[in-house]
């Protein structure tokens, strides 16, 4: 009898123990990401994974980009722009401190921008700072930035992860121990596994609802699926395998939010080499690509076809998918005219993302129909950066360009796909000093038209941002106007 009572008591204790966590409000979140950042300093690296961990969570800029892509005040409370568009005066927030306790003032802004635009700077977006002529400290709470020419998107650009404000004391160690002003403090980095953040109790603004967050790096799509289903991850803002979305949608435990991203996915062609230097060959390739088949086959229907290097949700977007419609006969004729009646052989180096590997197999099959024999070479990211991006040693590759409004890459000297058109460069030059939104949009349209007509690359589709998270977790971004996982407003619904 006594034993029974004990067993009963034990059972009760056990039951209480099991049910208790269900009542206690969860205050942390574990976020899944595909790639681990190489380091944690957003002002010293191009990897999107850096911004996806620290942007707006650990580091803040003068302005910040909101979930809908609009420019909001960040560390600058307000600003004024001179009539000639050359002088920006920023009024800084009062009472802001860095995570190490040091105060934030105008000197930090001057330090950050001077550091970013210095010759030895490793900033990945130096073009943001290129128009800056001088950064002047007016008083501890006022900074004046003078530009050498008007810069149309300056306020937006200052909201990028590359333009966040760092402190002179910690700038050199931000790669491993980032110190910013954001609502979360860096806590720990378990290399190969996760980065832990904890709430910054001394935050200048509304404190974050979460007491902590873990960014966990799960590279394998199948493992990501298992981790989500098991509840090991609370959210996967950029789920890599779209074929699993219906499974999540059918499960009431999860919310599936498919939003827009800035990722123009392209079949990049090495324009500086034969046969891709020939416009007719590039046109033939564009004609041989069946975009809808690629979206259906590689993305399980998620994705918007694009006909140029521009995001469909932008007001200046033009639908140019009809420039070179899917037409095999036309493609064969063009190839023959270019001197390749029997086609040719080419290699395709594919980075390890699901979209690239799958699209690559489909495109290889499509191109074989017009006689182009494609040898697929799978590469890892490091090899891709080394061989394709830096070394220009490739024929074709597939990659998604996830930076916002990045059509200007087609004007860069010696960029990896090697497009060189002075007329296009002139459009981008005008664009960079144009501040009027209407005029800017007209220029954006011209730019889109030109690269579409020149068939610089095979323009495939806009990458969707397929977010999957626990249905009770609220406040994550549905779109990705900038590379970020902003946790400021993230909270658990009761």
């Amino acid at each position, binding site marked *: 009898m006594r034993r029974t009572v004990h067993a009963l008591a034990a059972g009760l204790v056990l039951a209480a123990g099991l049910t208790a966590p269900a009542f206690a409000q969860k205050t942390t979140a574990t976020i899944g990401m595909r790639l681990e950042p190489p380091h944690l300093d957003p002002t010293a690296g191009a990897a999107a994974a850096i911004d996806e961990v620290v942007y707006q969570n650990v580091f803040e800029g003068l302005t910040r980009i909101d979930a809908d892509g609009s420019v909001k005040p960040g560390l600058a409370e307000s600003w004024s722009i001179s009539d000639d568009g050359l002088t920006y005066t920023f009024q800084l927030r009062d009472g802001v401190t860095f995570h190490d306790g040091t105060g934030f003032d105008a000197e930090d802004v001057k330090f950050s921008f001077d550091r970013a635009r210095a010759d030895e700077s490793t900033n990945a977006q130096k073009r943001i700072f290129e128009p800056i002529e001088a950064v002047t400290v007016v008083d501890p709470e006022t900074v004046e930035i003078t530009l050498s020419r008007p810069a149309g998107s300056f306020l937006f650009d200052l909201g990028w992860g590359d333009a966040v404000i760092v402190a002179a004391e910690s700038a050199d160690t931000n790669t491993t121990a980032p110190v910013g002003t954001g609502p979360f403090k860096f806590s720990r980095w378990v290399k190969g596994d996760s980065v832990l953040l904890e709430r910054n109790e001394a935050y200048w603004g509304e404190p974050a609802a979460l007491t902590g967050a873990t960014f966990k790096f799960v590279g394998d799509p*199948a493992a990501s699926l298992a981790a989500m289903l098991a509840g090991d991850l609370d959210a996967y803002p950029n789920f890599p395998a779209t074929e*699993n979305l219906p499974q999540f949608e059918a499960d009431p435990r999860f919310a599936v939010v498919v939003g827009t991203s800035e990722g123009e996915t392209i079949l990049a062609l090495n324009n500086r080499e034969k046969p891709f230097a020939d416009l007719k060959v590039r046109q033939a390739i564009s004609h041989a690509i069946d975009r*809808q088949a*690629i979206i259906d086959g590689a993305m399980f229907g998620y994705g918007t076809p694009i006909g140029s290097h521009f995001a469909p949700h932008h007001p200046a977007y033009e639908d140019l998918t009809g420039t070179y419609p899917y037409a095999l006969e036309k493609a064969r004729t063009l190839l023959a005219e270019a001197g390749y009646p029997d086609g040719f052989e080419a290699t395709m180096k594919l980075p390890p993302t699901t979209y690239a590997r*799958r699209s690559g197999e489909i495109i290889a*099959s*499509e191109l074989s129909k017009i006689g182009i024999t494609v040898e697929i070479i*799978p590469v890892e990211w490091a090899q891709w950066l080394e061989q394709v991006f830096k070394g220009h040693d490739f024929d074709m590759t597939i990659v998604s360009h996830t930076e916002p409004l990045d059509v200007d890459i087609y004007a860069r000297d010696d960029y990896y796909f090697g497009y060189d058109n002075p007329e296009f460069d002139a459009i981008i030059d005008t664009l960079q000093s144009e501040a009027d939104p209407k005029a800017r949009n007209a220029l954006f349209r011209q730019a889109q038209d030109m690269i579409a007509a020149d068939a610089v690359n095979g323009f495939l589709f806009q990458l969707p941002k397929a977010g999957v998270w626990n249905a009770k977790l609220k406040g994550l971004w549905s779109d990705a106007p900038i590379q970020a996982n902003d946790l400021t407003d993230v909270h658990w619904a009761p």
Partner: protein
Amino acid sequence: MSETAIDGVNRRSMVARALRHPSFLIGAAITLTLLAAALVSFVWTPFPVAEVVIRDRLQPPNPVHWLGTDAFGRDIFSMLLVGARNSLGVAVVAVAIGIGIGVPLGLAAAAEGGLLDSILMRGSDLVFAFPALVTAVMITAIFGPGAINAMIAIGIFNVPVFARVTRGAARALWGREFVLAARVAGKTRARITVEHVLPNVASLIIVQSTIQFALAILAEAGLSYVGLGTQPPMPSWGKMLADAQTMMAIAPWLAIVPGLAIVASVLGLNLLGDGLRDVLDPRLDRTR
């Protein structure tokens, strides 16, 4: 095992034993099917194997596509046939490398003994000390992924296996009367090896081959699974499995078909090897 010798064995009784041996028969049937599938794929597949037909994607098994289609609308049955060819191709070459290098080394070590024996055997210990598949991954990662490099990587690990098996059996033979008689008759070590030792270790090498063959198929599937073996658009069982992983919930046949193919081939070859050992060596048969 080391006493293997087929001298004096009646061939007719060997055939009779084979026909009575269930695991030999099952193993042989599976292996022949595999071989037939691989050969057929050279001349015929129901659909072109690399042809992507997106509108036909993810069809469950049906009268047109007997084993269904994958996410790109490719016919799974066709891929299975060509996959068999690729698996067998890699395995044949890998085992050939093992036999071609390992057997002569083993014979030489047994014949010469002494320092050469020590060097060769410690050398194979060294190769054995590395986990085979991990090193195969390393080799293909360094020299680039592809079927050829997979063959070489898997082949390298077959070398010490054959060297050891051959050396063990051959050393036992060197102590036997008929070899001593040959030595007394003045034959050179090399000649004795070729005329007397090799024929008597042959059956053992054949049995070991079937086992290594099964392991090579498994290794090829493993390398292709991690993307280091046969490259697309060439289908391979390992890659089919890898592609199927995230689609288990929506298209389970994508994983089941290549999975069963791998299991069946490895099982078949192991049964065949087991059976062959009994058939070729009647003395062992009685002990079990």
